[in-house]
């Protein structure tokens, strides 16, 4: 066995911190997040800090080069609470000088003072969940903010010194038209963020939208309809055309960035770098072992840190190969054939005979510079292609 041969040059680590709180659940959201009592937040922070200390002890040989505070709405916490957490991470883990440190923010929760404070504390990348510039659409999504509040927050972030900002937008929203979506894109572009995440709405089970628009939903006229397939397609193509023209390149299925402004943290997920998730329901991958923290708040708060880990799986060779393929293909640069061979000792063609050829044949995959990547058409039906790489 050629163990770990050339697996990584240096021992890098990404850290994810989950803040599972929000002021109000958005109607489409199926993430682990909820409205809670102030006391629960306090208890949570105490436990989270304990988990951070505990984890830091285990990863003393690692250099953390990205930190990501996600949610929920991390900015629902006080600026002091957030900077405390980051301070603890910086002092207990080895976080590199130029690490990418992101925090997600809801436009309804960011004051000038808070942003200043966060920037001072060391957060250097801000990801703002805008979704739409149309207030009617925002209301329909159950968002707690208006477009004006977002613009205010955006400028405040710039003033505070955030020079790496992402804005989330969404298409295929109830009542949305290609015109209104175009308007959203244009207004966002006018602000020149470094990064834009553009998602197409998916109606997930267990959300309010599922009840309204899901497979078994009753038809109720009082809710605006979802766009037709044609309209939705138009929006989808518009995203690519407009953003590429404005100088953003699509580096992942739903993510666009200016040069060198790709989100390093998220790229780590697709490249299967080591990452550890801290907090309720957070996922980790470390040296081909995956696990997840409990997603029950009570368990998280009461159990010892070693006890709330669930679903610990040591990935078999096949599973590693599967992940290498279907995660790697999310990136527009695709997967490296050479890297695959170095890691697994066999070529992609050997492991998946005929599959790459088949999809090159029908124009869904391309090969460029020793990399296999999805074509533009392939991105649209990526699930179909990716599923072929499962055993």
């Amino acid at each position, binding site marked *: 066995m050629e163990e770990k041969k050339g697996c990584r040059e240096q021992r890098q680590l990404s850290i*994810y911190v*989950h803040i599972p709180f929000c002021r109000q659940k958005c109607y489409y959201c199926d*993430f682990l997040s909820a409205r809670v009592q102030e006391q629960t937040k306090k208890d949570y922070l105490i436990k989270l800090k304990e988990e951070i200390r505990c984890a830091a002890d285990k990863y003393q040989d690692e250099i953390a080069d990205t930190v990501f505070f*996600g949610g929920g709405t991390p900015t629902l916490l006080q600026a002091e609470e957030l900077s405390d957490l980051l301070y603890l991470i910086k002092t207990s883990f080895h976080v590199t000088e130029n690490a990418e440190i992101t925090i997600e923010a809801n436009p309804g929760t960011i004051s000038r003072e808070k942003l200043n404070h966060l920037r001072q504390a060391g957060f250097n990348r801000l990801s703002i969940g805008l979704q739409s510039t149309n207030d009617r659409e925002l209301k329909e999504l159950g968002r707690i903010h208006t477009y004006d509040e977002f613009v205010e927050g955006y400028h405040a972030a710039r003033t505070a010194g955030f020079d790496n900002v992402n804005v989330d937008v969404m298409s295929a929203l109830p009542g949305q038209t290609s015109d209104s979506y175009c308007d959203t894109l244009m207004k966002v572009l006018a602000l020149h963020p470094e990064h834009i995440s553009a*998602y*197409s709405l*998916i109606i997930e089970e267990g959300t309010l939208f599922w009840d309204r628009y899901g497979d078994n939903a009753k038809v109720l006229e009082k809710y605006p309809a979802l766009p037709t*397939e044609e309209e*939705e*397609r138009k929006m*989808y193509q518009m995203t690519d055309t407009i953003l590429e023209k404005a100088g953003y390149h699509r580096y992942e*299925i*739903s993510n666009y960035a200016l040069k060198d402004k790709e989100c390093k943290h998220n790229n780590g*997920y697709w490249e299967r770098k080591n*990452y550890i*998730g801290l907090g309720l*329901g*957070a*996922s*980790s*991958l470390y040296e081909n072992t*995956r696990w*997840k923290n409990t997603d029950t708040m009570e368990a998280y708060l009461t159990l010892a840190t070693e006890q709330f880990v669930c*679903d610990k799986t040591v990935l078999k060779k096949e599973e590693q190969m*599967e*992940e290498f393929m*279907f*995660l790697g293909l*999310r990136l527009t640069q695709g997967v490296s054939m050479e890297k695959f061979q170095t890691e697994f000792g066999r070529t992609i063609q050997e492991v998946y005979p005929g599959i790459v050829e088949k999809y090159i044949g*029908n124009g*869904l995959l391309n090969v460029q510079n020793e990399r296999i990547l999805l074509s533009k058409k392939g*991105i*649209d*039906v*990526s*699930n*179909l292609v*990716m*599923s*072929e790489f*499962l055993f």
Partner: protein
Amino acid sequence: MAHIDKSKIRNFCIVAHIDHGKSTLADRIIEKTGLLTSREMQAQVLDNMDLERERGITIKAQSVRTVYKAKDGEEYIFNLIDTPGHVDFNYEVSRSLAACDGAILVVDAAQGIEAQTLANVYLALDHNLDVFPVINKIDLPSAEPDRVKEEIEDVIGIEAHDAPLISAKNGLGIEDVLEAIVAKIPAPGGSDDNPLQALIFDSIYDSYKGVIIFCRIMEGTVRKGTKIKMMATGATADVVEAGYFGAGQFIPCEELSAGMVGYLTASIKNVKDTAVGDTVTDADRPCKDPLPGYKKVNSMVYCGMYPADGAKYPDLRDALEKLQLNDASLNYEPETSVALGFGYRCGFLGLLHLEIIQERLEREYNLDLVTTAPSVIYKVHKNNGDVIELTNPTNLPDPSEIEYMEEPIVSAEIMVTTEYIGSIMELCQERRGVYLGMEYMEATRATLRYELPLNEIIYDFFDALKSRSKGYASFDYSIKGYSRSDLVKLDILINREEVDALSFIVHKDTSYERGRKMCEKLKDEIPRQLFEIPIQAAVGSKVIARETVKAMRKDVLAKCYGGDITRKKKLLEKQKEGKKRMRQVGNVEIPQKAFMSVLKLDSD
């Protein structure tokens, strides 16, 4: 074992219309005769297939032997053979009847005589059985025992004035039935000393014992060691075990002699050696002639059955072979389909029979099947004088070679309450029925007689009948013969390629409608693929209907949050799993259930 006095044996069966309480009465008889205590009784002892219990119908004939101490102080041996009620299983009924000397006719006190009551009772009379009626469900508020008694006497012409009035469900009047069995069913004839002559009425396969033959001994005696010979197949074997039927178990005994019903095992491994209806005799001292056996049944409905997983083809063959042993009315022969690969063209008595076999193959033999649209047997008269019996539409010769075609016609009797006559006549009209006449059985009930093409009733006629009469119509049919008809082959083209497994024969006048429905259905069943897929129905080179499956344009999971990839992987796995259940036809992937969707064309 003490010698059994033949005059104390009663071999009988119970016949009834479906749902009139035949199996429940059988249970009560078994219970009251003390073979089982009430506590041991599982509801409906004789229906021992899971499928039978679930559907509440009897599919296979089952036998049981019980002992009854009659009021005259004597002990009688009852051999009760339960029979299926549905019209599709007439053959099974016929087999059971041949093993009996008499029959109990069960009639529902509220519903009275129904189509299958008649069919089954005539079948019993044909076999020279003594039939006595029993009026069941007298506890129902709507029960009218006197009216029903009169009906039995008027319509069937058997005496009914002293028919026991019972409620099998509540155990009411069962004693009367038991006494009537003793009094009215004749004891078997035959002599123990004559050469062995036994009728095979069923058989099953046991992996330890080999074939187990169910037989009625007509003449002579058989015991362990007897060298037996099957008269039709010529196979010989030494009897390893002889015995009779307990409830759900085999009870070995020393010998079976004339008049008895029981089983034999003889280490017979080849299921084909023991044809149901054959006569078993002593190889060293054979009887002169075989018993008449049964009229060979002809399959009425055919369809292709294919293993979902092509590698399971040998398993399907084994399963069919074993099922056929248990169900002689099933026949099959290998065929190949461009779309579905290797499989079998199977013949059935009717659509219910088809469904039952399909379910049994799936449940008992753990097979995943793809079934093609059912077809009847068409007679194709070619220009050169040849006549082909066509069971697979794909084999239809080129129209230029065909002079004309014939299709099977049935005589149907539909009993219905008068208020639904109109809607039932309308239904028969839609199905190309020819009205023959109508008789009133009483003021509110009538029998409609129609001639109907068999291919119009094999799909869903029964369901349509029930829904249009709120369940009040009953139906029975028998094959009348063939009649010339304007038939065409409807082909289905998917992405401009003909899919052989989807072709079927249809009357010219209904081809347009059928084609349109078929295309609509397939459009719903075939998932979007990378390109647009035209679905066309064509007669010859003429396209008569078309639908389009739009190209798949989007299949992306946009968000993958916080490094939690498990959900994404699950979604991809599901997709991969779905792909396995697809059949590749040309470059289109067709889900297996699409092939079967044509069965349900008229359901909506």
